[in-house]
C-alpha cells in the first residue's frame, strides 16, 4: 500500500499576524532602562564625562574654582616646547616600556617553554609564580625598596657574599641605576603572569601537529622555532600590547619606590601629571590635563600601529 508522499505543504490555516508582531528579544524601553540604565549612568558620569572634561580642561587654565581662562592650545605647545621635565619623563617612560615590554613578554615565553619541555610540578609551582601578580604595588614596592637598601638589602648582601662587593650600590639613590631598579621590580611582578598565559597557550596547541613535526625530523629547538612560536603568535601579540599599555601608564610602582626621583631619573609621564596637578607651587589642572591628553593620543597611536604591523594576515585556525 503506497503511503501518501510526505512533504505536502498544508495550507495556512491562520492569516498572517498584523504589523505589531513583536520580536521577543527586542527589549522594551523599561527593560533597557532597568538592565542597562545603571551601567550607562555610572559610565556616563564617572568615565565618559571625566574624559570629556579632561579634554576640556586641557584647553583652559583650571584653578581651584574650576576653569578660569581659555588658553586654547597654549598648554600643549608649552608641554611640547618648553618643558624639559616632560621630555625627561617621556624618555624615562619610553625606556621603561621599550626595554621592559620585550623582557617581560619574551622572558615569560622562555620560562613557559622551559616548563613545557616537561618539568614536573609545573602545575603546583605556578601557584607560587603567580603570587606577585596578585600583590598590591605597595607590597611589591616596599619589598623591593628593602631589597635595594644599601646597608642591609638582599641585593648588596648577595653581591658581597659572592665576592662582587665592589658592585654594591645605592640602587634607588643613584640616578644611573634607579630606573633599571624599578624596572626589575616591575618585571618581578609580571613575569609570572606572562609565563602562565604562555603555558596555557602551549597546552592548547594541537598535539598532533607537534607529533607531525617530530616525524618531520624536528628536535626541541627546531620545533620551537618553526612550529611553536609561529603558532603562538596571536597570544604573543596580545601580551605585547597589554604589557605595552600597562608600562606606558606606570604610576604606582614608581610613586612608591622613588616618587620620580632621584633627580627626575625615574619620572614617568603619569607621575609628572600627578605632580603637576597636586604637588606644584601653582594649582592648575589644565596643564597636566594637556599632558594626559597628549599621552593618551600617543598611546592609542602606538597601539594601532603595533597591532596593524603585527596583525595576522590570515587566521591561525586550528
Amino acid at each position, binding site marked *: 500500500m503506497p503511503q501518501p508522499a510526505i512533504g505536502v505543504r498544508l495550507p495556512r490555516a491562520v492569516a498572517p499576524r498584523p504589523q505589531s508582531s513583536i520580536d521577543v528579544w527586542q527589549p522594551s524601553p523599561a527593560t533597557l532602562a532597568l*538592565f542597562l540604565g545603571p551601567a550607562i549612568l555610572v559610565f556616563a558620569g564617572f568615565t565618559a564625562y*571625566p574624559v570629556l572634561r579632561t579634554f576640556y580642561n586641557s584647553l583652559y587654565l583650571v584653578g581651584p574654582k574650576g576653569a578660569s581662562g581659555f588658553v586654547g592650545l597654549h598648554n600643549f605647545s608649552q608641554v611640547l616646547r618648553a618643558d624639559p621635565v616632560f621630555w625627561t619623563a617621556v624618555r624615562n617612560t619610553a625606556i621603561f616600556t621599550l626595554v621592559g615590554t620585550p623582557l617581560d613578554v619574551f622572558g615569560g615565553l622562555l620560562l613557559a617553554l622551559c616548563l613545557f619541555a616537561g618539568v614536573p610540578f609545573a602545575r603546583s609551582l605556578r601557584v607560587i609564580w603567580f603570587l*606577585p601578580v596578585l600583590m*598590591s604595588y605597595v607590597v611589591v614596592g616596599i*619589598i623591593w625598596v628593602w631589597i635595594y637598601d644599601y646597608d642591609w638589602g638582599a641585593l648588596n648582601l648577595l653581591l658581597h657574599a659572592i665576592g662582587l662587593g665592589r658592585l654594591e650600590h645605592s640602587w634607588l639613590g643613584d640616578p644611573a641605576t634607579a630606573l633599571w631598579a624599578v624596572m626589575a621590580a616591575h618585571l618581578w611582578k609580571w613575569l609570572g603572569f606572562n609565563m602562565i598565559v604562555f603555558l596555557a597557550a602551549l597546552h592548547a596547541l594541537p598535539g598532533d601537529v607537534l607529533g607531525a613535526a617530530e616525524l618531520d625530523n624536528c628536535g626541541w629547538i627546531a620545533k620551537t622555532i618553526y612550529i611553536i612560536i609561529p603558532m603562538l603568535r596571536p597570544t604573543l601579540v596580545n601580551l605585547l600590547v597589554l604589557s605595552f599599555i600597562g608600562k606606558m601608564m606606570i*604610576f604606582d610602582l614608581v610613586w612608591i619606590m622613588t616618587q620620580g626621583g632621584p633627580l627626575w631619573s625615574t619620572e614617568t609621564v603619569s607621575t609628572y601629571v600627578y605632580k603637576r596637578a597636586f604637588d606644584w607651587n601653582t594649582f592648575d589642572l589644565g596643564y597636566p590635563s594637556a599632558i594626559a591628553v597628549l599621552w593618551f593620543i600617543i598611546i592609542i597611536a602606538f597601539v594601532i600601529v603595533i597591532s596593524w604591523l603585527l596583525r595576522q594576515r590570515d587566521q591561525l585556525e586550528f
Partner: protein
Amino acid sequence: MRPMQFWLSYVRRTPLLLFLLAYTVLTGGPFLWVAAMSLRTTSEIFANPYGLPRHPHWANFVDAWVGSNYSTYFWNSSLVVVSAVAGVTVIGAMAAHCLARYRFRSRRMIRFVILSGLVLPPQMLILSLFQILLDYQLYDTLPGLSIVYIATQLGMTIYLLEGFFSQIPQDLFDAARMDGYSDFEIFWRITLPIGVPAIFTTVILNFVILWNEFLYAVVLMTSDDKRTLPLGIMHFMGDHQLDVAMLATGLMIAIIPIALIYACFSETMIRGMTAGAVR
C-alpha cells in the same frame, strides 16, 4: 639500557630544575621574608635581617591594628572594596545580560563604548574625577571612592560576563519565553544561576584588583581616617621609614586576605586573570 636513560634524562634536566628552583625561591621567598619580619622587632631585624623570629611577636599585629591605625585602614578598604564589588557585580551583570541577550539598534555602539573604557589611561580620568568629587561633596569620602571604583571596574566586568552569558544556549531563553517568564524573571532564574561561575570569577578578580588599588585612592582621599590600606601603608612608610617591623606587619595585613582567597581559589583566579590573554 633502561636505568641509563632514566639518569640521562635527569642529568639533562638538572640545569632546568635548578633554574626553576631559583625562580621559585626568588618569587616566593620575599613573602616568607616579610612574614618572618612581621613577627620580629625592628631591632631584631636590623641585627639580623634575614633570620627567623626568635619568639614570634604576635603583639606586632595588635600594635599595628590598634596603635598605628591599621584597623581603620583595613575597615576602610573593606567597606569600599566590598561595596564596590557588590555594586559593580549587580550593575555589570544586568548590563551584560542585556547586551548578551537582546537585540537593539544601539547595542553594538554601547558595547564598543563601554569596552573602550578598558584601554583608557587613568590619567585621563583622575584629574576630572578630582574636580567632580569635590563639586559633589564626595571628595575624601568612602562612598565617593566606592562609586569611582565601580566605574573603573565596570568595563572589565561587563566584558567578562557578556562573553560568558552570550554562550549560554539561546534555547533555554526561548523556552523560558514560551513559558511566560518576564524579562527580569529570565535574568533572575536563568542567567544568574547558570552564570554563577563567571560571576564568581569576576567577584574575586574585582576584589583583588580593588583591594590593591592605589592611584585613585591617592588622588581622591586625603584624611588619615579615610585612607585605604595601600594608602595607609604608604603613609606609614613616609612617616616611619625605619620601623621596618611595623611596616612588615602592615604589609602582612594587606597580604593575608588576598593570600587566603588565593589559597582557596587559586585555579579560578589564575584562569580568570589569564584567560583573556590567551588566543
